[in-house]
């Protein structure tokens, strides 16, 4: 039997959305403060408008739609999927007012790209953007990477059973602590510790390069948001290439990888056993895929004699793609001249992504590992006597049996991601783009990476902008909460 929502359900959903919008609007006070400190007058008004609209909408929903039912899982899923859409629209308001976007859709694209930690950009003249707007662009990645709803959950005073619904709705499949609110708070705690470490590291590098102290601090903060939350935005049009710093490239790689690691593994390493890093299934899968793809990249780039070319051009993009970050040290069009084999490696790295319960997108290491393991398990089964019962195991914080449920889940997500990757590529091809760049861009949007072969630009067709917005949104939430929401809407129309 399918649950059919009524008016009271929607009233409850809108009420919860109102609360969450209020939460989001307070994040807009941060760029507002930056605008005041940096004496940026026009941006101050942009954020004042954005803040006022968000608070007004949040309060209106609270006043007009009372919570008429106990919040359940269905409400949570619907709230999450709708919440991300509304947040990206509200987040686009100050961006659009900056006059750095050709249309509101472009600003919405940028906002969704930030919240979904993708990093694809449609902004124009980025080098002249205000500090307040840059703070907001990068902050959206931090909010989105941590989970917008998670941000709200962590400030709830008591744990409600439905919190798990919000948590899973935002594509987090594992609890770290028994209580979801405690889990949310732990994720924030870990992130803040890395924030201090990351900002200090980036600041030291940038300040040593001769960048002014206040600018070094802001750039360090923004780059941390983009690296750890695997977002990929940067405050300059050349992205990481602007800084011409090998040290910064190494540092960003470290924080990209840290961001791509399962938060559960962070918890385990911090509080329980350091040895877990050598046994963990996701880490092993990551090493296997990285080494394999690096070898392919090596052969693809074999024409370049020096290893440093390989490292800066190939390996950096590979790690950026694999972690789902999207930072690049290449100039415009350089990636288009990658050998086909190199490009395919980067596409595969983007498709896979990082750990479950991390800030990355894509199929995820755990699922890919399970698919590999299932294949070998089936081969072993065929070799064994027909009566033998064989179950494979893997180690993720503890020894786990490779159950049918896990295998089914891995294949379902694998199929969904593959379908959306291909569908997005077909749309772009239908609009006249060549197959490889079309696939590259589609994977980059769905897996929330942000590397681009140039299709993503303000002049691209509006329909493709909307398709990529959908892909970023669906990819970040891993489809389920969106499909549940669509199902609910359909049942409403069937009534």
């Amino acid at each position, binding site marked *: 039997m399918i649950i059919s929502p009524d008016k009271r359900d929607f009233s409850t959903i809108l009420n919860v959305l109102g609360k969450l919008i209020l939460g989001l609007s307070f994040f807009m006070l941060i760029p507002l403060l930056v605008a005041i400190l940096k004496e940026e007058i026009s941006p101050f008004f942009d954020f004042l408008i954005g803040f006022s609209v968000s608070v007004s909408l949040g309060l209106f929903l609270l*006043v007009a739609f009372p919570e008429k039912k106990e919040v359940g899982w269905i409400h949570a899923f619907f709230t999450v999927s709708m919440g991300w859409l509304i947040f990206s629209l509200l987040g686009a308001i100050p961006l659009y007012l900056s006059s750095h976007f050709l249309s509101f859709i472009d600003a919405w694209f940028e906002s969704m790209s930030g919240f979904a930690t993708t990093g694809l950009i449609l902004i124009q003249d980025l080098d002249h953007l205000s500090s307040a707007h840059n703070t907001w662009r990068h902050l959206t990645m931090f909010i989105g990477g941590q989970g917008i709803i998670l941000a709200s959950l962590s400030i709830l005073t008591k744990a409600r059973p439905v919190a798990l619904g919000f948590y899973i709705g935002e594509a987090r499949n594992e609890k770290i602590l028994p209580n979801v609110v405690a889990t949310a708070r732990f994720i924030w705690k870990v992130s803040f510790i890395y924030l201090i470490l990351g900002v200090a590291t980036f600041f030291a590098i940038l300040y040593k390069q001769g960048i002014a102290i206040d600018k070094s601090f802001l750039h360090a903060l923004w780059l941390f948001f983009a690296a750890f939350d695997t977002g990929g935005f940067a405050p300059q049009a050349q992205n990481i290439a602007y800084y011409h710093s090998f040290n910064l490239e190494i540092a960003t790689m470290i924080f990209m990888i840290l961001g791509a690691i399962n938060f559960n593994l962070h918890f385990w390493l911090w509080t329980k056993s350091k040895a877990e890093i050598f046994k963990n299934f996701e880490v092993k899968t990551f090493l296997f895929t990285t080494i394999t793809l690096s070898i392919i990249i090596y052969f693809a780039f074999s024409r370049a004699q020096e290893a440093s070319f390989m490292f800066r051009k190939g390996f950096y993009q590979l790690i950026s793609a694999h972690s789902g970050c999207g930072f690049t040290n290449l100039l415009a069009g350089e990636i288009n001249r990658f050998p086909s084999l190199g490009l395919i490696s980067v596409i595969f790295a983007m498709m896979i992504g990082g750990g479950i319960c991390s800030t990355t997108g894509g199929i995820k290491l755990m699922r890919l590992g399970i698919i590999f393991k299932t294949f070998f398990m089936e081969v072993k089964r065929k070799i064994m006597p027909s009566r033998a019962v064989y179950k494979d195991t893997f180690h993720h914080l503890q020894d786990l049996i490779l159950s049918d449920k896990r295998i089914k889940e891995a294949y379902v997500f694998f199929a969904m991601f593959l379908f959306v990757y291909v569908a997005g590529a077909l749309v772009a091809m239908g609009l006249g783009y060549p197959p490889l760049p079309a696939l590259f861009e589609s994977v980059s949007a769905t897996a929330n990476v942000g590397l681009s072969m140039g299709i993503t630009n303000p002049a691209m067709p509006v329909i493709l902008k909307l398709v990529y917005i959908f892909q970023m949104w669906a990819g970040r939430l891993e489809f389920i909460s969106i499909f549940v929401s669509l199902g609910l809407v359909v049942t409403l129309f069937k009534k």
Partner: protein
Amino acid sequence: MHIKNKIKKKAGFNVGLLLLLFLNQASAYGQVASLADILNHPDRFNERRIEIEGEIIGELLKADKGLWINISSADQSMGVFLFDKEAVGAISHWGRYKVRGDRVKIEGVFYKDCPLHHVMDIHLDRLEVLEQGRVLEDSVPLFKVDLSIVFFVICLTMAIIYFIKLKHGTRT
């Protein structure tokens, strides 16, 4: 006489050929190009002396054995490496928010895969400021002020309604 004329003609042809070759060489040595041209066809310009024009962006960045500047033109940007700080002494405005950077002409050698830095870059020979940049006025369009007042009033009204409703709800 006939042979003399023939020799003269041949010599003239050879001189013409040499001149043509020289001119061809000269055009390849110091090509004026746009950043977009260079980025789209790096092989054509690789290890050649080029001239580009654009806006100076950001700041002077220190490197191991020199310095970096960034130049931007028509939505394309590139790093320019230099050994001596004096080469950029004439720059008065560096492009950033509220500042339009100096428009400069860069002369240097373009490297598709720079053997020193392992990236695509230009090694500076000479920099000339073509047009001084300027500090832009941070003017606020009137519609923004009006909009912010309208929405701020709506926001306050909603807050009052919400708190009245909250108070009323708590009492009942």
